[in-house]
Each structure stands twice: as structure tokens, then as C-alpha cells.
């Protein structure tokens, strides 16, 4: 009940260094990269150790090294890295530039495992996926098919691991990730008029958005899909999808941040640690969007509408 008391207290102190809405406002108004860097340095101090997600993760692992639940947060990166390693192996390239860190996997080992086809050395949640994806990609040479298989299995693995923890926060986290990914996939499949078979393989399904119903909606066309989503518990997402993909992406990130906001109220347990990681992820995404928008001279309104919800 009082697990991770030290970690949670440390995280609460670290939250003071996260960017606030007024910091983001200042960053939006900044005239250039130098001013942005100076605003960030004044908030976080020099030699800040949480400037990359890898550093945030390593800090969390220092405080809670045995926390298995937190590892679910990295499943997306793990499966992405599997995709990167597989495709690089087929194309005869080095995968290092395509990897996302942090990851639960040792990335050098991953390359080695895939080339030796010794899938038993992979974590249990990705063994079957790696084997199936390899077979699929070597048989069809269709990267998209392998991608959709891995993406779908990512969500299934997250849901399964979350259910295994029995923790409501983690179950909701996996569910929201699945719902967002499924809506995105359904929208793309519908727009690109993908076959029913492809759509069926690409959509994972969840307790809130049932797979069969979503596939049926996709085959019915865009209007049927939007009307199906409008009548689901994610009606607001359907409205955003029609307006702009960027706003829908922002909505997906914001629902996860809202979940993190509830978890950070807890005084003990791993939930505030997971919430902090989600907040740091959103902050880094905001900074990336800001710097790209600045580089391309996007107007203030465009930047503001893309800014993710903050947790502080």
C-alpha cells in the first residue's frame, strides 16, 4: 500500500521542473531557437537530467527498478524497435537510426536475436509476433502487412499485460491506447479503401470499441464510420477526425494526459511514476512540435492548436 514512497516523493519534487502553460506561452512567443533554449534552461536549470525520455526512464528505474507495471509504458517502443530491426535486416541496413529509446529490450541483442531467429530470447510478449512478422515479411515482402501485424500485436500485448497487473490505471491506459490506435487505423483504412481482410488484421478491438463493429463501419464507408464513432463513447473524437488529423492526434495524447492527471494525485504506488513518464513524453512532444513550427515559420494559431495538454 505504501510502495514507492521514496520514488513518488522524488517525482513530485521533479514535477516542479516540468513546463507549465505559462512557460509554453513564453516559448510560443519566443523569437528564435536561442530564446527558446534560454527559457527552457531558466525553468529546468543547466545540466538537467530529464531532458530526454531515456533520462526520465533511467531516473524512474533508479527509484523503482523492480516495477514491472511501468514496463508496459515501453511496449510501444519495443514493438517499434522490432519493426525497425526486421525491416533493416531485410533491407540490409543498420537499424540503429530507426530505434526509439527507451526500450525494455537490449537493442544490440534484438538485432542478434532476429538474425539468428532465436526468438526464445525475446521477452515473452513479443516472441510470437517477431516470428510471425518475420515469416510474413519474408513471404510477402510487404512491409505494410508486417507493420499492421506488429502494431495490432502491440496493443494486444499492452492489454494482456495490463489485465495481468489487475491495476485499473494500467488497464485504462492500455484501453485508451487501443481505442486511439483503432480509430486511427479504421480512418486510414476507410480513406485508402483497404480490403476487409487487411482492416480485420489491422484493428485490435477493445471492450469499448468492438472489433467486428468497427470493421463493419469501415467497410460501410466514411459516413458510416463517422456515424458509428459518433454513437460510441468517443463521439468527440469522431468530430475531430472530420475536422483535422492533427487535432485528432492531439486529442489522443490529451486523453492519456488526463488519465495521468488523475494518477498523480496518489501518494504511493507506481501510478504517479507512470503519470510522470506520460507527462514528460507530452512535454518532449510539445517541444518538438514547437521547434518544428518555429523552423517552418508556422503562425501562432497553428502552434497553439497543436500544443498537447500539460499535466502541471
Amino acid at each position, binding site marked *: 500500500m*505504501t510502495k514507492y514512497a521514496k520514488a513518488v516523493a522524488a517525482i513530485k519534487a521533479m514535477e516542479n521542473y516540468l513546463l507549465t502553460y505559462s512557460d509554453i506561452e513564453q516559448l510560443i512567443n519566443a523569437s528564435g531557437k536561442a530564446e527558446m533554449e534560454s527559457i527552457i534552461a531558466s525553468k529546468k536549470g543547466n545540466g538537467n537530467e530529464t531532458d530526454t525520455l531515456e533520462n526520465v526512464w533511467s531516473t524512474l528505474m533508479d527509484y523503482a527498478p523492480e516495477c514491472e507495471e511501468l514496463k508496459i509504458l515501453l511496449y510501444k517502443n519495443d514493438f517499434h524497435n522490432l519493426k525497425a530491426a526486421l525491416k533493416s535486416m531485410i533491407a540490409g541496413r543498420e537499424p540503429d537510426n530507426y530505434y526509439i529509446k527507451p526500450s525494455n529490450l537490449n537493442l544490440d541483442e534484438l538485432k542478434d536475436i532476429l538474425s539468428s531467429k532465436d526468438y526464445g530470447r525475446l521477452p515473452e510478449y513479443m516472441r510470437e509476433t517477431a516470428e510471425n512478422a518475420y515469416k510474413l515479411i519474408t513471404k510477402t515482402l510487404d512491409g505494410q502487412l508486417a507493420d499492421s501485424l506488429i502494431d495490432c500485436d502491440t496493443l494486444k500485448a499492452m492489454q494482456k499485460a495490463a489485465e495481468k497487473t489487475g491495476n485499473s490505471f494500467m488497464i485504462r491506459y492500455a484501453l485508451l491506447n487501443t481505442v486511439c490506435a483503432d480509430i486511427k487505423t479504421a480512418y486510414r483504412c476507410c480513406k485508402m479503401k483497404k480490403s476487409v481482410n487487411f482492416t480485420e488484421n489491422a484493428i485490435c478491438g477493445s471492450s469499448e470499441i468492438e472489433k467486428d463493429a468497427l470493421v463493419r463501419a469501415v467497410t460501410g464507408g466514411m459516413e458510416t464510420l463517422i456515424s458509428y464513432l459518433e454513437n460510441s463513447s468517443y463521439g468527440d473524437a469522431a468530430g475531430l477526425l472530420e475536422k483535422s488529423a492533427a487535432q485528432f492526434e492531439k486529442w489522443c495524447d490529451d486523453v492519456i494526459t488526463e488519465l495521468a492527471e488523475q494518477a498523480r494525485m496518489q501518494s504511493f504506488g507506481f501510478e504517479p511514476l507512470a503519470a510522470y513518464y506520460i507527462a514528460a513524453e507530452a512535454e518532449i512532444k510539445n517541444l518538438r512540435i514547437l521547434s518544428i513550427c518555429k523552423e517552418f515559420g508556422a503562425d501562432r494559431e497553428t502552434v497553439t492548436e497543436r500544443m498537447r495538454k500539460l499535466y502541471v
Partner: protein
Amino acid sequence: MTNGMVFALIGAALAALMAGIGSAKGVGLVGEAAAGVVSVDPSKFSKVLILQLLPGTQGLYGLLTAIILLSRVGIIGGTPAELTTAQGLAFLAAACPIAIVGLISAIFQGKTAAAGVGITAKKPEHNGKGIIMAAMVETYAILALLISILMIYNIAV
């Protein structure tokens, strides 16, 4: 030594032991949380230290009760009294409120104070609120101490 004296000594031991265990657990938990905050921001040491001290009081109440009890039965500063079994059991019963409430309240106070450390970490200006919340739990330890002392002083020896 009579059976009565043995029961009285068990009472004194329980008062010091159980309240002490509770305090050790409570102080330990807050210390863990405090160390987390200080590892990120060492300037908050003094503020979190106050919170860490709070669950330590139950141990002192247990010690105080044990000393008063030992003094009443003549183990400290006098001749050991020839206590009957009934008198010994009465002293044992008198030690129970602070022993039991001390143990439980110190653990719960530790949890509340550790949560208060979170307030101090995030909003140091609201440190007082964390202290007040933790201090509320203290009330019940004080009530138990009062009852234990009243009982010990009112047992005829």
C-alpha cells in the same frame, strides 16, 4: 516476584514495545519519502524533517507510560510492590490503550505524513497543511495516552 508484578511488567513492556514499533514504521516510511524529495531538492530538508518527526511521538508516549507504570509499581525509585494478580492485570489493561493505539496511529500518521511530503515537494508554501493533516492523527494517540495514565494513577497499590 508475584504474578501480579509479572503482568504489570508485561504491560510496561507492551506500552514501550508496540508504540515504539509503530513509531519506527511511521518514521521510516516518512523518511523514505523525505529522502526522495531531498535527493531532488536538498533545500527542502528542514521542511520534510518536521513531517518525519511527527510519527515519532507515539514511541515517546509508550516510553512515558512504561516509566510511570514502573514507577507506580516500585520498580523505579522504590521497593517493588507485592501486587495481586488482579492488580497486575489492571496495570496490563492500563497499558493497552497506548500500546495498541500507539502502534496503529503511528503507522497511519506515517502514511499521512509521507503523503504530506508530496505536498512539500510540489508546493513547499503549503507545507503547513501537510503537517496539520498528519497532526490530526496524533489526537487519538494523545487520548489513548491520557486514558493509560489516568488508569495507571488510579489503580490502588
